[in-house]
């Protein structure tokens, strides 16, 4: 069977190199690159307060006792940060409004002071206490900025950067999810329908182990094409985004692409075998409802999805658990990475075996038979 599967793999790999397929492959590769490029361009306008993650307290912008516009954020870990809005000259010399993180003054502990969620006692730092007390509830920055930046502020000013978890979330959503799923949708779901439509099924099914060879061979072909697309996309996107610890990012995303390819590929193979004409629609419906809706239900049911496993691996491999709010843990889980990988491999094997059994037992009637 392996020999037959490899024959099918080699044949399909060569046969599928047509202009139209290469064009579709390039579109899939280019899509995340385009998104990341636009995001990189917009990074200079990024509001750094968003990088603090979801705030547990709605502390709006206030004008402090010294008259400076300030925004205080307190995230779910209790970390306090104070931002100020100043005008900073850009590369063309024009003054643009920017939010800067107020540097920590020795002895004042302006930033980094920790407060627990729900803590209503006034903070020790008088500036923060004053800032919180004089909150006027206006929300975002209002009014004029606090004049031009000082020389120290200008020299120490750094362009805002997206936090690592933002890049990670975007790359995870675009490459192991969107690109992988669409690639597999195109190359794997019609594995039987394409042969029936092209009237070549009978040639393959009349060969010893022809059916299973077609299944495994086309599965390998689809996974290969999609993996290649993921590899190129990930590499170029990381080069554009330049996140911190880029190499670790690359390894993590590529590993997720690989696991996503093999596990979703096996799932779509089963759909392709069972629902020969409607496999693509069934696969889309399953993905939308189960993988993208059910996986976000904060209950045990989300552990039945591949999405849950992949999210867990992402957070584990990039050490983001501490960044996640407690209420998100039910969506991510606490299982170790090796268990998630084992489950994904197990799911792949089980679904492929099921598809193999189904393709051997099913009768595929062509129009010429009736």
């Amino acid at each position, binding site marked *: 069977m392996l*020999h*037959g599967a490899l*024959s*099918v793999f080699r*044949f399909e790999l*060569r*046969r599928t190199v*047509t202009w139209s397929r290469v064009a579709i492959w390039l579109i899939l590769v280019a899509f995340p690159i385009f998104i990341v490029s636009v995001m990189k361009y917009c990074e200079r306008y990024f509001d750094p307060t968003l990088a603090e993650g979801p705030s547990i307290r709605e502390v709006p912008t206030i004008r402090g006792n010294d008259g400076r516009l300030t925004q205080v954020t307190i995230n779910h870990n209790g970390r306090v940060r104070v931002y100020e809005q100043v005008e900073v000259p850009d590369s063309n010399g024009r003054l643009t409004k920017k939010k800067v993180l107020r540097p920590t003054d020795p002895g004042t502990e302006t930033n980094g002071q920790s407060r627990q969620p729900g803590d209503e006692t006034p903070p020790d730092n008088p500036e923060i206490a004053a800032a919180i007390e004089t909150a006027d509830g206006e929300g975002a920055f209002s009014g004029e900025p606090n004049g031009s930046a000082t020389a120290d502020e200008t020299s120490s000013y750094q362009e805002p950067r997206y936090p690592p978890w933002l890049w990670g979330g975007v790359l995870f959503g675009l490459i192991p999810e969107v690109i992988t799923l669409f690639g597999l949708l195109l190359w794997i779901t019609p594995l039987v329908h394409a042969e029936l439509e*092209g*009237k*070549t099924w*009978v*040639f*393959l*099914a*009349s*060969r*010893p*182990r*022809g059916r299973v*060879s077609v299944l495994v061979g086309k599965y390998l072909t689809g996974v290969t094409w999609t993996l290649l697309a993921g590899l190129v996309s990930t590499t170029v996107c990381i080069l554009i985004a330049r996140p911190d610890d880029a190499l670790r990012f690359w390894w993590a995303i590529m590993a997720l692409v690989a696991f996503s390819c093999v596990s979703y590929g096996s799932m779509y193979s089963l759909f392709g075998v069972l629902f020969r004409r409607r496999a693509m629609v069934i696969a889309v419906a399953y993905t939308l409802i189960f993988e993208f809706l059910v996986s976000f239900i904060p209950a045990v049911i989300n552990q039945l999805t591949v999405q849950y496993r992949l999210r867990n691996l992402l957070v584990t491999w990039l050490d983001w658990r501490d960044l996640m709010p407690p209420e998100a843990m039910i969506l991510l889980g606490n299982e170790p990475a090796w268990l998630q990988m084992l489950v994904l491999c197990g799911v792949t094997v089980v679904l492929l075996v099921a598809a193999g059994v189904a393709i*051997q*037992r099913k*009768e*595929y*009637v*062509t129009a*010429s*038979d*009736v």
Partner: protein
Amino acid sequence: MIELRNVTKLYGTVIGVNDISASLAPGAYGLVGPNGSGKTTLLSLITGQLRPTMGSIRVFGEPPWNRDALLRTIGLCPAVDVLFSNVSALDWVRYLVELHGFGRREARRRAEQALDQVGMSAHMKRMIGTYSLGMRQRTKLAQAFAHDPELLILDEPFNGLDPIGRFQMTSVLRAWIRAGRSLILASHILHEVEAISPSFLLIRGGRLLASGPAEEVHTMVDTKTEAPVSEVVSAIRIRCSDPRLLARKLVESGLIESISFVDNRQVVLLATCQPNVVFERLPHWLDELNIRVDEMQSPDESLENLFSSLMRMHRGEVS
């Protein structure tokens, strides 16, 4: 070789084949029937593509469904057209031979040999999308026997072939039979099948109406009355330079049942029970009499006559 016992195949409420029983020893058989009679369904059952709804089927002693060892001994040339437009014949046949378990080099050698046998050596590296219908038919035949099967199953192999192509394919199949291999050839054209296989299976409406050697089929006798049920007559139209001279020669040969002149006496219309013999001898006569043929047609009504007779007999009507 093949054992069919009350085999029935239903597609929902549509009957594919209906209670067919037959026992076929190794040899060559023609499966003859009009379009929609169940030939393709029967062949699909024999090759293990479909499972019978009722009854049983055995090929070389085993049920063919999911039998990989059996599939190695069968070569199938289906009626469907090959639609791989961006693959060469060599690549395609080699790929299919590899699926039988042969290594890459051996598969390539066999593919080249098979394509050479069907006269495709010069074109085997071109894309299939550039082939004519006849070339695609020959490519299909090549993939059917490239792996050296014991039983060759052909479904409408002469579709789309010109007379030269038909002649060539007939020669290949005759050589196959002479080598002692088995063959089942399905067609709706009686004389094509007759030129290759000595035995027929006549199928219509999913029922097996008759089976046996060709000479028995041609002159079927009602077992009750011992009267001929039907004589299968083929009609041939020939437009030539000297119709009268040709007609005299045909009458003298004793092979024709009737002869007439049509189309302002430019066309000879003859009826014969031995069309193959007529076709065999016709070139010699034309050469001997120096007659030029402008047009020749053979509207085959013999099969329709044959089946009409059989249906009348099966319905209990005495001819």
